């Protein structure tokens, strides 16, 4: 099933690469990815969709959270993404 994920990290070169590298290194395909500033000082926000077994995604999330300059990574519920054009548009 598709998982909707947000990752907040320090807005600095290399941080996104560490996260994306970690995801791809475990065989997950990132189906959608959007990175932008977050509104918080020096923090960028990545939104991404990936497909995978929930248990494996849970471990992955902990591993993303373990990254030194990731401030928060979490899986969103369907309700949480319902108003988000980026996430919703993938259902079309």
């Amino acid at each position, binding site marked *: 099933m598709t998982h909707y994920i947000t990752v907040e990290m320090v807005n600095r070169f290399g941080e996104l690469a560490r996260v994306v590298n970690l995801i791809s*290194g475990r065989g997950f395909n990132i189906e959608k990815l959007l990175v932008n500033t977050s509104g918080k000082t020096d923090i960028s926000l990545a939104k991404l969709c990936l497909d995978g077994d929930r248990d494996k995604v*849970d471990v992955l999330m*902990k591993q993303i959270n*373990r990254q030194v*300059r990731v*401030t928060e990574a979490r899986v969103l519920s369907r309700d949480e993404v319902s108003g988000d054009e980026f996430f919703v548009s993938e259902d079309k």
Partner: protein
Amino acid sequence: MSSQTDETAAKTGAKLLCEALVNEGVDTVFGYPGGAVLHIYDELVNFRDSITHILARHEQGAVHMAEGYAKATGRVGVSLVTSGPGATNTVTGIANAYMDSTPLVVITGQVPTHLLGTDGFQEIDIVGITRACTKYNYLVRSAEEIPEIVREAFYIAASGRPGPVLIDIPKDLTVRKAVHKMPEKLNIPGYAPHAFAEQGKVEAAIEKIVSAKRPVFYVGGGVVHSGGTRELVELVERLAIPVTITLMGLSCFPSAHPRSLGMLGMHGSYAANMSISEADVIIAIGVRFDDRVTGDLKKFAPNAEIIHVDIDESSIDKNVKTHISMTGNAKDVMRQMIDILETRPAPPAGRLDAWWERIAAWRSHAPTAYENHPEVIRAQYLCEEISRLTDGEAIIATDVGQHQMWLAQYYRFKHPRSFLTSGGLGTMGYGFPAALGAKIAFPGKQVIAFVGDGGFQMTMQELATAVQYRANLKIIVMNNGFLGMVRQWQEVFYDNNYSEVDMQFQPDFVKLAESFGAVGLRADHPSHLAEVLTKGFETDGVVVMDIVVAPEDNVYPMVPPGAGLKEMILR
């Protein structure tokens, strides 16, 4: 934190780097010079009073040395190499440190900033290459930031779950002059290692532990890293619960302690694997339920409730679902447990008698007993002799494979940080340079590299380093002429179809040692073994002992791949 102090006059990036290393208390750097780090090496000469540089013969060796230094001392190991091949040669060492949670700071030179991305001479994106095997890594973009990055790197490497951090410094920044202002306090958003666990969870865990009928400890490297041996021994003695230990944790609990069941896992003791399999409560501390420990997960500890303490939250519920999990530093959480036990009446004596009786029966099964051969040295005997002659007081390092497993089974460990082994990555060629790094940290201690003939040939050029620095280091080569563990698998699981495991040509290790200015000795008969080992230990300087052992011997017990822990092949 924006307030800034400690203004310094303009200095070159190289000088800022050397000063930053001194500020971190660095006394030894294991390295290898090259074009991109020429300015740094030029400056390093001015720091000879504070920093000893050990010139390795290969960058992989330098990083393994730094790791041996770090594992033996508990401090951050430091390695300095050039760009391109210098940097790529460190990758195995960095990955090894990453898998074994060893704190390292590896500094690599890089082509000058204006050449980045141009395929310049000796340019490689080492930050990109090491993303998956570093706890963190940096590409430095200005000389000003060097001191702060160094401070951060040491903090990140040593705190939380330790690990390697790489700093890649373009050459132009090492000669550029800069004034640095160090912030008063490091600010790393998103990084806050835990120490203590939630008190309520610790109380719930204690409740479960004291009411368990078949409890067992499963402890590992986290106890070593956190310096928690005293707490572990106290906890075990208060509770009278058996202890099983992972390869990475072996030195954290005395092998001779009556509560020790020895190592668990693929080549673990029968008693350890049976007790884990039959337990009703497993108290897992500083461990990560590695596949070499658990065997088939579906058959792992089917009746046990699992209490897991680890500093790395991502290790919890990764392979095995836990019932009570606590994120925290092993030593600190064990102290919390002891504090709670102190407020309670002691658990009734004899409550675990029935459990200990079953364990006694498993122990007497004694599958690690072996028979000596009158003409051929058995590797098990060699390991027992090393243990006897050192009385467990040595620091001993190994590679990966049969020799490592036999040593883990037969050496009687006494002190934490006395066993330096490549556990997670399983790196051949690790043991000898790691032992050398430990010897440089502790010149007064007995340090032994115990390696196979295959692994030794991967990094044996570091004999030159050992001799150059007059290390009083002893290298014992367990020489069976085979890549023994691979051969064992081919024998057992591939119907004796030996494929490229027979080392049909070997150097003469005695002459090889002599050509490096070391002493070479050989034993190929059981009657000479003790004499050769004793002579080797007593001879000053670097000594290589070539110990010719039975060529086709297997490590037992063995849990076949994909099998459950109880499905051990015993002999």
